């Protein structure tokens, strides 16, 4: 506790740095994984291998990945961009399968009915398939968000500031309180972002709660 009272003033900045790394990575993962998931769902032949490849990405150990990314993308090793790209690779790997499942979970009849009344293929995606995929997508985004928040800590290994600094510094100097603070704060940030995802998911799906309430007090015909 002595460590905490002496160093608490560092903490807001570390949380801020942590967020600066994980929020862009989470958003990028969603932007990349959702179209891939849709593609995999629509075209089974491409989809199977694509999902398999994505799952493999998650199996790449973090340190080699952090070394390969600067080479492939031509960016400096010790940079925010390297970290964001690495987190996005893992995020996409985690999310694509759920994204494909989310589109598969959209009721075929509803999709068909929307086409039959005259939605174009583009408008059926934006106005029907995507909104109806949100509930399953949210479940995948929650897992990916929590995973990304915890992965950000390895950024400390390439000198990226974040809550991971508390872990590496605490280990090197043998300060248990510092390590514990890092662990607890990472969990708190993960839970906070998870709550944000749940909240946004609720806002995006007003019909789900209305439907539940409606079924409870069934309307006579």
């Amino acid at each position, binding site marked *: 506790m002595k460590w905490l009272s002496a160093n608490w003033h560092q903490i807001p900045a570390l949380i801020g740095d942590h967020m600066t790394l994980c929020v862009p990575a989470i958003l990028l993962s969603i932007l990349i994984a959702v179209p891939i998931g849709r593609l995999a769902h629509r075209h089974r032949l491409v989809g199977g291998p694509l999902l398999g490849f994505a799952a493999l990405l998650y199996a790449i150990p973090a340190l080699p990945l952090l070394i390969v990314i600067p080479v492939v993308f031509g960016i400096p090793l010790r940079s925010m961009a390297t970290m964001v790209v690495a987190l996005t690779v893992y995020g996409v790997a985690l999310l694509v399968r759920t994204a494909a499942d989310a589109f598969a979970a959209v009721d075929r009849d509803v999709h068909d009915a929307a086409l*039959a009344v005259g939605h174009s293929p583009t408008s059926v995606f934006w106005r029907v398939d995507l909104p109806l995929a949100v509930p399953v997508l949210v479940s995948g985004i929650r897992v990916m968000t929590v995973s990304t928040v915890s992965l950000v800590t390895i950024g400390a290994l390439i000198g990226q500031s974040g809550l991971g600094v508390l872990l590496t510094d605490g280990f090197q100097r043998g300060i248990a309180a510092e390590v514990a603070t890092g662990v607890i704060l990472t969990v708190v940030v993960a839970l906070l972002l998870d709550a944000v995802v749940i909240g946004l998911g609720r806002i995006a799906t007003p019909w789900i709660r209305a439907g539940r309430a409606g079924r409870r007090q069934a*309307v006579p015909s």
Partner: protein
Amino acid sequence: MIEFQHVSKTYHTGTVAVSDFSLVVPSHHITVLVGSSGSGKTTLLRMVNRMVEPTSGAVLIDQETVAAKNAVALRRSIGYVMQQGGLLPHRTVVDNVATVPVLNGVARRTARRDAMSLLERVGLDPSLGKRYPGELSGGQQQRVGVARALAADPNILLMDEPFGAVDPIVRRELQDELLRLQADLGKTILFVTHDIDEAFRLADEVVVLRERALVAQQGVAAEILAAPADDFVRTFVGADQAGRVLSTRMVSGRAVAVDGTGRVVGVLE
């Protein structure tokens, strides 16, 4: 007028859904395709709005082949009502009804206002407009489905077993409502059902289909009941069933109609 010219549909699995079907569906009338499952009736209906493309033959609307039309524009010009309503669960009732006008570029506010008056027209309280389809009963959802189909004021309505999933009392109400609307609107309606009683109640002309959409008999209800073309039709319409075979008996000086089981079903005037 909708015209089917020698249409066939063979799926890539080799299943023949429709084999050489021809029919003229006259304007401003209700034509009902009736058959059991596997008779290809839904496939025929979906050929009209190009949800299914025939393997051979052509479907024409007012002498123009639908294959030459843009599929999306064609579908927006045809009302389509399907089983379970086919409503979008994530849009409110009023937005569901306003779907096609909004897709056609009508201002959302105008489309919503029109949708509200359409809800009244199909016998729904406009206050239901703000709800989601999941909050409505099956019968109410079907009415919304009819309102949506009418929203862009199409000449043609395609109805695919629209009342199949509701209980018999509500189905009866919906059928009456449809006949009342049709008396006002005079749309060209192509209606698909497996329920022969529904076909007889609604149709100006009934087309009884066998498997692969072979026409077993075509005509008004009375003709089909009075003179079934063959045993298939006789069995399908239940011409020999006790409920269809009526006789009269004199009671207190009045002729009383009695069905095949001896149950009294009405009085003759």
